């Protein structure tokens, strides 16, 4: 099926057959071209970004409201952290540095809470501190919620079972001070009590005196600095819970410097799954915020994949059917395309 005139007569039209606008068109070609035209226009017209925002809102908002959860299986990294805490003998001394703030709390708070639950369940001594000024209220909230309320039956005592050293400025220098001489950095705890008067501080002088360092990290100063300025010299075992963007930077330190990492909300959800399996009292959905947040994450990821694929299809089509001042591809009758400023006349 051809749409061009045939015959021996030569005309100006025939002379122009080399032009794409005069080439014989197959119906499939027409469909592909016009479909391509529409899609290319769609892409070239730059879809209003508010439609994408709306899609993202729905992708995240609906699962948040429905609270749909999915089963998680702990990966090797998460298992390494979980098993190490399990294998420590009860009463081991664990320093937990919660270096994050409310901006990243949605991602990191579930793993901070899970760490506290696990440590308290195993009867370890918990020493909390932070290098981020906005973290103190979050730590107070978590300790109230987990150590005081959830473990009320254990009657965990401040100063004997857990304590909060508080916030300390100085970033990497503060980390180095913890590694060398913790008491010089923290003369008192967060409540202003001298460390000399706190029973569980007996025998604690530096990071070397701890059995494990747990770091919940949102950036600088955080996990990488703890590795570089503290655990590399003290050789204290260390495990990390971090944001998704930090994860790739910390993989090089596994397993020599870092036992394992809980990366992003998925890491938190996997840890919650491991904790619920071992300690069924934590299997309640309301206690598993990480697992709950994997629902919105699933739909957000799917939307992202669709957007990336759609964007690339449009890109390929725009390359195959480039918009030009005469219209699109062969069909020069499309006069609705405005010539680009500075383009060919």
């Amino acid at each position: 099926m051809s749409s061009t005139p045939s015959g021996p007569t030569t005309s100006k039209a025939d002379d122009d057959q080399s032009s794409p606008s005069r080439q014989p068109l197959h119906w499939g070609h027409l469909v592909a071209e016009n479909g391509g035209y529409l899609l290319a226009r769609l892409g070239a017209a730059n879809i209003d970004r508010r439609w994408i925002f709306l899609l993202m809102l729905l992708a995240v908002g609906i699962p948040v409201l429905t609270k749909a959860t999915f089963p998680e299986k702990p990966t090797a990294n998460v298992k390494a952290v979980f098993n190490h805490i399990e294998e420590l003998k009860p009463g081991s001394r664990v320093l937990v540095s919660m270096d994050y703030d409310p901006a990243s709390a949605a991602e990191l708070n579930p793993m901070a809470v899970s760490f506290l639950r696990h440590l308290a369940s195993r009867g370890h001594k918990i020493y909390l501190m932070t290098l981020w000024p906005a973290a103190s209220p979050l730590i107070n909230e978590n300790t109230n919620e987990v150590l005081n309320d959830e473990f009320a039956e254990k009657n965990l005592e401040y100063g004997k079972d857990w304590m909060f050293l508080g916030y300390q400025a100085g970033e990497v220098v503060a980390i180095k001070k913890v590694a060398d001489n913790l008491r010089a950095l923290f003369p008192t705890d967060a409540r202003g009590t001298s460390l000399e008067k706190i029973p569980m501080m007996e025998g604690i002088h530096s990071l070397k005196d701890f059995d494990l360092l747990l770091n919940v990290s949102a950036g600088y100063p955080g996990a990488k600095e703890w590795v570089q300025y503290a655990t590399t010299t003290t050789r204290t075992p260390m495990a990390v819970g971090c944001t998704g963007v930090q994860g790739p930077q910390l993989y090089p330190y596994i397993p020599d410097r870092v036992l394992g990492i809980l990366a992003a909300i998925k890491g938190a959800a996997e840890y919650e799954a491991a904790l619920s399996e071992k300690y069924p009292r934590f299997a309640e959905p309301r206690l598993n915020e990480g697992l709950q947040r994997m629902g919105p994450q699933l739909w957000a990821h799917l939307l992202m994949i669709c957007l990336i694929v759609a964007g690339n299809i449009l890109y390929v089509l725009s390359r195959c059917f480039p918009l030009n001042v005469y219209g699109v591809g062969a069909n020069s009758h499309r006069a609705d395309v405005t010539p680009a400023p500075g383009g060919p006349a």
Partner: protein
Amino acid sequence: MVVSFFSPRLEWMSAVVESWFLILAAIAMLLGGANLFMHHSNLIYNQKPGWGYSALTLAGFLITLVAGLLKLGVPLTPQFPEHAWAGSFEEQPGVIWWLYEYIIKPSTSTMFALLSFFVASAAFRAFRAKSTEAALLLVTALIVLLGRSYAGTILSAPVGDAYSFAALTDFVIMSVINTSGQRAIVIGIALGVAATSLRILLGMDRSYLGADE
């Protein structure tokens, strides 16, 4: 500090420098506060464009400063009931607690959450396979996006855990490709820092003093 790394007997030198650093950091915080106050006061006084934002910044700064220093609204502590200022400045229902709970928390969380919208928009507009490298990055991103969600678990169920998207993400992309690349970068940076430090220590590089070379 460098010397103290090589001899335990000289560790005190490092400790002294670290203490100086901490003191200077505290003074720098004061200087920073004073600088912020003067800069924004100047903008407001001269009514420069956007001075309204400066007024808001200054108001927030002063309210937080006064509420924290005076421990406004902080309850009495059971240990020291006769001392009104004995409680922590962050305690409920103090003004600082209120500011943290109802201004800092929601605003910073919102800022972080907005990223998802911009990332989605950027993914659609900019994440194009324009070259081989970009195509590789794109395929990797798709695998990681699937591997870090339940969608990957469902899609790779027929092939088993060993070949799942999660395993591909963890054991191939993150543990092999990413780790080797990151290690190369870290080692390269460390060598660069060591070389630059040596040049400075030996006086071969004086650019930090304002010299041409």
